[in-house]
């Protein structure tokens, strides 16, 4: 019993939560921006994967993991730009285009892995980002373990989430994004360039997801592995909805999920007499229970998934 409690209430578990939540929270915020502007984003998974791959490729060819991160952001944005082009300009159904993007990204990264490195499983090891310990925090007993000595992308994630929240709710651009997702025609009649807002938001979602991918491949491991996003894009989508299309909410939802995942992983090695499959279910069941119990009324942006500007 003590072991179980220790698995749940420990700094290590919380630190693991932060580590595991980082890519999901980043992509979830990407989803938030995209969907706040009215574009459903199932393509987060593919964007994470692309970012993870580009990050490793960048680091591989330049030796610098930070160049890798830049690559991840740029290529994440690039696939997002393609996605934006299809959903905004060519009026593709958002869900299909997202699914298409995911399949495309999976195929492309695997193929490129073969072209570049001759195998379709994993890339060679590359230089990853080393963890940084923060001068002050590393002296404080609890915080040192909790948030100091993490990958730099973890800190960047925190800064970005707060920045994203600020952008969305405190700035003119944020207002325009929200308005576009709620009622593009209202935005249009106010002289706001609806498609430009949408392009911006979707591309931003790609940049953020790409960064999430870079965290996986460079900030966390230091290699790329086929399909290494492993469903995190879908988790991010769920976190975004759970978090009420708010970056902070998305972070909270990512925390909830990653926390229960961290607990799950720890409970496994305690050798409780509980079937392994049942322990592995914990994060998913908890998410459902909290969601059903929280009585959160999910109210998506009014014009989510719609196209704007058909007839002129």
């Amino acid at each position, binding site marked *: 019993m003590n072991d179980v409690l220790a698995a749940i209430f420990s700094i*290590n578990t919380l630190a*693991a939560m932060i*580590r*595991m939540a980082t890519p999901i929270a980043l992509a979830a915020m990407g989803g938030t921006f995209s969907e706040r502007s009215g574009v459903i984003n199932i393509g987060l998974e593919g964007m994470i994967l692309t970012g993870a791959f580009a990050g490793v490729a960048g680091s591989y060819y330049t030796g610098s993991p930070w160049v890798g991160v830049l690559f991840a952001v740029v290529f994440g944005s690039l696939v997002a730009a393609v996605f934006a082009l299809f959903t905004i300009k060519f009026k593709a159904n958002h869900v299909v285009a997202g699914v298409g993007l995911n399949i495309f990204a999976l195929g492309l990264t695997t193929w490129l*892995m073969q072209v570049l490195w001759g*195998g*379709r*499983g*994993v890339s060679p*090891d590359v230089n990853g980002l080393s963890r940084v310990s923060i001068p002050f925090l590393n002296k404080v007993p609890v915080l040192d373990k909790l948030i100091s000595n993490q990958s730099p992308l973890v800190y960047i994630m925190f800064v970005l989430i707060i920045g994203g929240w600020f952008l969305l709710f405190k700035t003119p651009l944020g207002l325009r994004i929200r308005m576009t997702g709620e009622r593009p025609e209202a935005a249009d009649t106010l002289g706001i360039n609806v498609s430009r807002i949408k392009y911006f938001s979707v591309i931003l979602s790609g940049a953020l997801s790409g960064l999430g991918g870079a965290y*996986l491949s460079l900030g*966390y*491991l*230091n*290699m790329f*592995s*086929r*399909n*290494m996003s*492993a469903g995190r894009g879908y988790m991010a989508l769920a976190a975004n909805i759970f978090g009420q299309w708010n970056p902070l909410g998305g972070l909270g939802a990512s925390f909830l999920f990653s926390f229960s*995942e*961290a607990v799950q*992983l*720890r409970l*496994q*090695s*305690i*050798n409780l007499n509980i079937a*392994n*499959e049942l322990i*592995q279910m914990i994060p998913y069941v908890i998410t459902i229970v909290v969601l059903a119990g929280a009585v959160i009324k999910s109210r998506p942006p009014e014009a989510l998934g719609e196209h704007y500007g058909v007839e002129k």
Partner: protein
Amino acid sequence: AESRIAIVYATGGLGDKSFNDAAHRGILRAEEELGIESDGAEPSAIAEYETYLNRFASTRRYDLIISIGFDQADALTKVAGQYPDQKFAIVDAVVDQPNVASYVYSENERGFLMGVAAALMTTRTEDPMINPEKKVGVIGGMKIPLIDSNIAGYIAGAHYADPDVDVSYSYVGTWTDPAKGKELTISMIENGADVIWGAAGRSGLGVINAAKENDIYAIGADSDQGYLAPEHMLTNGMKFVDNTVFLAIDQTINGNFLPGMNVLGVAEGGLGYTESLLPDSVVEELEEVKEKIVAGELEIPEKVEDAE
């Protein structure tokens, strides 16, 4: 004429740096040494095994068709029945057909060796990578019997070497998520484990990565994964799939095709370990254990329940 060989890999596909890749090496070696030609297929779903086997068999061009992986057994049973004149081989499973040579391993023996090595290491506190706690770990990809056999052997081996050693084991739940494998490893390291075996396909790469980062020992699986972490890869639980594949090809083209079950254990050279970073004293003890295994003196459990 030249011999042609076809091979159907397990669903993980090439590039796993372990199981499938080892099989692939066997093929390459056969191409080089035996001058054969080969075709390979990488199915993405269990339902596709039969398609590929059937396609290969229906061409009637191949001297031998090799199935890699336990989950091909049923597909192969069917296809082998349909093509009684075609020779097949399967690695990691038994198919009861007169035209199939089955090669299986006594996985628990390998686990046992790794367990012994891990237990011996975790008490060597003079090694900077070893902590005072007597804890070791093993991480499986999924909870399947084959993996459990390894884990059972591992636990038994560790306790054989030192009954006080604490062994924790857990499963990633997928073969393809290194990030989760890493997180699982970290949780074990936080718990005091300093030697951890990753038998988890590509998820196992996360085990190695975590070991490197936290300066503890990792143990590799199937192939020699030492190059992934030269300073942290204690040893590798070798499964010489490459040798097995080569053997099967060699036997077939030299007229020694061996239908039925071929069990490959430590004694047959199908399983083993690499010396890698193992200290000499440990290697010595491992060699002794190995002899005992070969001599059949050890009773090694196959189920985790029996090992605990």
